[in-house]
Structure formats: C-alpha cells, structure tokens
C-alpha cells in the first residue's frame, strides 16, 4: 500500500476521492504506524525487531485498546465519554478491595467490574440520550464522580494478595515460534497476557458489530447527521443510549483487564487514560464530529501511541516531560494531516 502511494501519486489521488472518509483515514493510520515502526527498527536498533517488544506493547496496552474501542464507538455516534479513565480506576480499586480485604473470588470480581461499567454507561447514556444533556458535561461529572468514589472506597494504594487472582495475573500465553535468545544465550518464549486475548476479541467483536449489524450502521448514521437519522427512521435516542451503554461495558471489561495487569488498587491509576483513549481514537481516524471512524484504526492508534512512547524512552529521553511532549507532537501531526487531507478531498470531490 505504502509503496504504491509513493510511486503512483495520480492514481492515489483518484483512489482517495473514491474512498469513504472512514477508509481513507484508516489507511493513513496504518501506513503511518508501519513507517514509524520501521523507523524505530532502523534508528533505535534491533530491540524493536524482537517480537516480545511488540507483544509487550500489547501487554501494556490491552486495557487501553478495550477502552479506546468503547470511546471510538461513542465518538462515531457523535458523542464523547471522558469518564472512562475514572471508571477504570474505580473498578481497579473496588476489585482490589473485594479480593484483598473482603476475600471475594475472581468471578464475582469480574461481575463487579462489568456491573460498575454498565451502571456508568446506563446512567450516562440515559442522561445524554433521553434528557438531551451535553455528553461532555455528563461524562465530565461521571469522571469526577468515579475519581472521587475511588478515594472514598479506599484512600491509599495497595497491592492485592489473592491466590486465585495471582495465578490469573501471572498467566502467560506462550506464542510458539516467536521467541528470542537473550544475551546470555537462553531462549525465551514470546508471550502475551490474558488481557491481550480479551482485547483482541473485543476488537474483533466491535469491528463486526460496526460493520455487519444494523445497530452498528445506525451508530454511523446518528453520528453523520442526527436529524437525518431520525427522519430515516432510526431510533436516535436508543442508538445514543446504547453507544454509551456499550462504552460503559467496555470500560468495565477494560477496567478488569487493567486491574489484571497492575494487580493493585490506587486512586492515581489510569490517570489521563481518557485522554490517551481519545488520542488513540483520533490517531486511528475517528473524527470527534462523528460519523467517521473504524475500530481497526483505533487499534492501530493505540499501537502508534505506545510505539512512540517506547521510541522516546529508548532514545534516552527518559525525563518525564519528553513523553508528554512527543505524544502531543504526534497528536498534533495527525490532526494536521487529517485536516489537510480532508480539506483537499472536499475540494477535489464534493463539488456540485
């Protein structure tokens, strides 16, 4: 794809015109991700060539992938949910307290996680869809509420000690044939955590939902033009409501996956996660105005975001501020690319 792009500009131009906005932005994202990864391999040495480096990106970001999927869904419908980070923190804390202090088992902990996520989704969805309150305000309040509740549940961070959970947390899925040899000459198998499997499943399910179900298409319709969607016979309120419920549910799943990864409860967990999720969605080609976006893009968005973080830290720029600045720079770059491409496309295409 990228080779084609360089050699045959004219045809690319034609192709761009015919592509839907969603596919166009998706293509850009994927191309940029691969270019970046190749760049990392070339300039940062072979560390990036190890499969485990890539898999670690997945391991560390499984929760973010899940949460970002939910956020993309809401953004495609034309809304926003900035409460997800808070919800993830609250879930971690609740599960931690349940498993560590109350002696609960893992199964009920999962139910708690899903329940909290769903509850947030339902309440926020109701307020947004049926009472017509701006989603930003509702989920802002949701974020405040979740963050506040987290400290009310427990103020101090602590590690969970629970056998069953410990086993789950330590579980690794070995991927055969992708191992590498360490400096000492020991062969180490490449592995992923359970969370990654969950994340990949979520991506798959969400992709199918958006692509091949009527509900999925109505998310796009509502995001494209709410008034029109109503006239076309779509139940706009229900659609918006469902988008928030699904996002809440995914925040619940993501919350538990996050908890599985960190194995502790803390009020400062997942801080800024909502912004990372929004950034991933945008880098993945979802537009905040709604109607355009793709789950696959979001997946690559998360990968791009964390790859750049890895590049920065492995380049020796490990002062804390560099990560913030590079993510911002990348977001800026993507936004400008998107804006320029869309503007040019509009000019060449949509004329009467």
């Amino acid at each position, binding site marked *: 794809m990228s080779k084609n792009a360089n050699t045959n500009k004219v045809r690319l131009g034609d192709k761009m015109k015919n592509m839907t906005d969603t596919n166009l932005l998706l293509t850009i994202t994927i191309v940029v991700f691969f270019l970046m990864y190749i760049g990392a391999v070339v300039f940062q040495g072979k560390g990036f060539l190890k499969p485990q480096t890539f898999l670690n990106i997945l391991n560390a970001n499984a929760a973010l992938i899940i949460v970002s999927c939910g956020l993309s869904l809401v953004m495609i419908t034309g809304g926003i949910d900035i409460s997800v980070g808070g919800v993830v923190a609250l879930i971690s804390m609740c599960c931690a307290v349940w498993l560590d202090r109350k002696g609960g088992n893992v199964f009920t902990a999962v139910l708690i996680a899903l329940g909290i996520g769903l509850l947030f989704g339902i309440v926020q969805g109701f307020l947004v869809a049926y009472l017509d309150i701006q989603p930003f305000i509702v989920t802002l309040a949701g974020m405040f509420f979740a963050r506040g509740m987290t400290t009310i549940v427990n103020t101090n961070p602590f590690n969970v000690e629970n056998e069953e959970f410990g086993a789950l947390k330590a579980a690794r899925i070995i991927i055969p044939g992708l191992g590498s040899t360490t400096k000492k000459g020991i062969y180490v198998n490449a592995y992923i955590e359970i969370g990654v499997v969950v994340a990949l499943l979520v991506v798959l399910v969400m992709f199918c939902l958006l692509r091949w179900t009527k509900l999925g298409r109505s998310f796009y319709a509502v995001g494209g033009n709410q008034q*029109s969607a109503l006239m076309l016979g*779509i139940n706009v309120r229900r659609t918006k409501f469902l988008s928030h419920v699904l996002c809440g549910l995914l925040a619940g799943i993501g919350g538990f996956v996050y908890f599985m990864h960190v194995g502790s409860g803390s009020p400062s967990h997942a801080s800024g996660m909502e912004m990372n999720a929004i950034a991933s969605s945008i880098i993945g080609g979802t537009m905040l105005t709604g109607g355009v976006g793709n789950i696959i893009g979001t997946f690559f968005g998360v990968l791009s975001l964390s790859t750049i973080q890895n590049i920065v830290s492995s380049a020796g720029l490990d002062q804390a501020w560099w990560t913030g600045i590079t993510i911002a720079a990348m977001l800026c770059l993507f936004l400008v690319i998107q804006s320029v491409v869309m503007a040019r496309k509009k000019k060449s295409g949509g004329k*009467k």
Partner: protein
Amino acid sequence: MLVSENVLEMKNICKSFPGVRALQNVDFKLRAGEIHALMGENGAGKSTLIKVLTGVYSKDEGDIYLDGKVVAIHSPQDAQRVGISTVYQEITLCPNLSVAENMYIGRGTGKLQNWKKQNEDADKILKSLDIPAKATQQLASCSIAVQQMVAIARAVDMDCKVLILDEPTSSLDDLEVQKLFGLMRDLKSRGVGIIFVTHFLDQVYEVCDKITVLRDGTLVGEYSIQEMPRVMLVSKMLGKDLDDMSDIKGEQAPYNGKDASEVVLEAEGLQSDAGIKPFDFYIKKGEVNGFTGLLGSGRSECVRAIFGADRVIGGKVKKNGKIVNINKPIDAMKNGIAYLPEDRKIDGIVGDLSVRDNIILALQVLKGPFKPFSKAEAYKFADEYIKLLSIKTASADTPIKSLSGGNQQKVILGRWLLTHPEYLILDEPTRGIDVGTKIDIQKLVLELASEGMSVTFISSETDEMLRTCSRLVVMRDRKVVGELSGEDLTQNKIMSTIAGGDK
C-alpha cells in the same frame, strides 16, 4: 380507475406552538392513485401538517385514518411502518454513509447487514430510475440533486401507500424535475397516493389532480385541478383578489438621472476557484440585469466571484471606472456592493440572533469593530426596516430562525438595504417564499432601481426575471453564452439561448 378510495384522511387536526396556532381543525383527504398538491403561503401550515403526519410533531387534537383505520403516529419510524414515506426539501440523509446505506438504513427486519445484497438491490433501483450514482459511493460525494434523487429512490423502494414530497424540486433542474415527474406518474399508476408540496405553480398544473389550500393554519378548501384557474388559486392562497401580477414593470419609471448611462461596475476576465470560466460583465447605474441559465450553470458562482465570496483567481474589476481589488466580501462591501446569497439558511441568516442583530450586522461590520451601535440606534434601524419591508415578527428581539422563510428573506434584504449599497446582487431572493412576498420583492427591486440603485437579479423562474430585468446574461455549463436585452427578452429566446444551437 381507482376512485374515491380514501387512502389517507386527516380530520380536525390541531397543533399549536407557544403564541402560534399553527393548525386549526384542518381536514385533508388523499385518494389512492392521486397526486395531491398542498398549497399555501409560507407559514400557512403546510410544513406543520406534513410534520404531524410523519410523526415529527405530535398533534394536539384530531385523528389520522389510513385505509379507514385510525393510526397513531408518534415518530418517523411509526410513519414508515404504516406506509408513509417522506422526501424533504432539505436533504435528510447521512452524508458519511454510502448511497446504498442511505436507501436501506432504518428499515427492514433483521439485525444483520447484508452488504452484497444491499448494494446490488440499490444499484438496480438507481439504474431503473436513471440516477447517476453508484451504490457504494459515499453520499457526500454526490451533487445535491443526486442526493435528492437518492432520497426519492429510498421512498419509492419502500412500497409506501402515501408518498410525501415536500418541495423536492427546489434544488433540481428542469431535466431532473421531468424525471421526477415521470417517477411520480409511474407511482400514481401503481396506486400510491402522493402529497406534493411546492411553490412552483407550473409544476402543480403539470402533474397534480387535486389541490388543497391552507391559509393561516386553516383549511381553505379542496379543489380539483380543472376547476381551478391559476389566478383563483393564487387569490385563494393569499386570501385576497389579485388584480394582476403579470405586469409590474410599467409601474416604476426607469431611472433617468443624468448619470444613467454610467457603468457602475465592470468586470473583465473574472474567474474564481468555484470552476467558472472567465467572464466579462458590466452594470449601469439604475439598471436591473440578471444571470439566467439552468441550475448549476454557474450563475451563482458568477455573482459570488463579483462579491468575493469565492476565492477570485483572475480578472480585473472596475468600480466607477477605477480598478478595485475584491478578494473578500468585506472588500466588496466597502465598494458599495451587497449580496443576498442563494441559500438563505446556510449563507444568510444567523439563526439564533435576533431580527435586530441580523439587520444591523452588515452595516456594523462596515462600521468597524470599535464603533458599536447603541441599543437605541439598533432598534431604530430594525424598526425602520421591519416597517418598510412589512416583516412579520413578534418583535425586533425575536430570533430570526422562528420567522417564516419569506420574512427571513426580508430581514436579510433589510440588512443589505441598510448599508445603502450602490449595487445590489440578489441571488434567488424569491426561492421558497410565498407568492405575496415574491411580488413585494420584485416591486421593491424595480423601485430601488428607479432610485438609481443597480441590481442584479437571479431567479429560477424565468417569468420573474422577465418581469424585472432589462438585460439578461445567459449561462450554460459555467460559461457566459449570450446576452439578451430589449426585444429579445422573451421566454422562447431565453430558452433557445440556454439550450444552444438553433432551436
């Protein structure tokens, strides 16, 4: 023939909004296989009646019968389900979806999306209706007219009993209108009842069987087309006898100051980035001229280039003999040019602002950011123009979006008259507004010209242009192809020039 089978009947429909009784005891009957025109001035209640029928508004009182049975319609989905489809004046499709999706979304059973079948079905329908679009194309990449046709295709495919066409022709050109009419007749023969809302009298007489006239939210009557001559229809709509609307040109003497032959504005090789070929243009003091041509022929783009609304990429403009540089609207305004845009909703009104703010806006911008009008001044201006143009509004503080289309147009007109321009461009000032206001505006144009203002008038209705303009620039395919004046100003001559060749 299927006669007197009432497929739809609305009885005693009432609907009020705060301060307005939009509909009072309105009855409406539609027979199967009938094209029924719903006529009335703006604000007569046509749109409200349609929206009640399609479930966008809920009615206060009254019943709706479909095939003799009472139906409850609370939402557009309900309407679709019972077999009422609607095509609105504004495109109500989703620009980010594909053409096929727009045709099928929101209907049918099943939870899954079958892309292949959907695209095939859509292509079949598009082909059978001669719509130049592909099923997989993103809707936003189609022209407005094609989008409108897609909306109709959607409605047609739904096997509806009642099809409502709410001013579907306002953005279509003649050819497309004919295609649409063919489609309507086809549906009619299949027994579909069609409600047709339009402002174009010609179109009503061309396709309709029956006319129902509304005025001020009440029913005036139902008539068959044969027993209803045009003049009578217009007078029914206006609620007064219309003396004669054919000749208003004679009422105003043309401007005859001593500078009457002076050229106010002259353009040479003007070209904008909106895709028109370079054109030359001039207008004299006190002259009314016009651009004519089919929709999309570039007439709007020409005046937009003169006003600097599109980016000018070439050409010279002379104002009163001096070369001026017009790149932005503000440059044109400073040179005494005013422009009433084609699309009132998108380019004209500032919806949430009051009538007063809308009227003073342009003059305020001209005056500069550091000299705001005082409230008293603003009210003075607003009241002056509300009176002068007899704008129907509750007060000068009413948001302009709550006014009817015609009154909104008058406010925009007032806005530009307030700047006392030397040269006024009116692009479709009469589109989508009622007959009474149309004539008011035409008269005003001639009056302004007789006082020495130069006016360019653009309209889709040729007779309107013939009534007002003394010179017509004819356009075809984004090019100026001729200029008509004096004796040549006849319907036939215009048509043949537009068509090209020797017809």
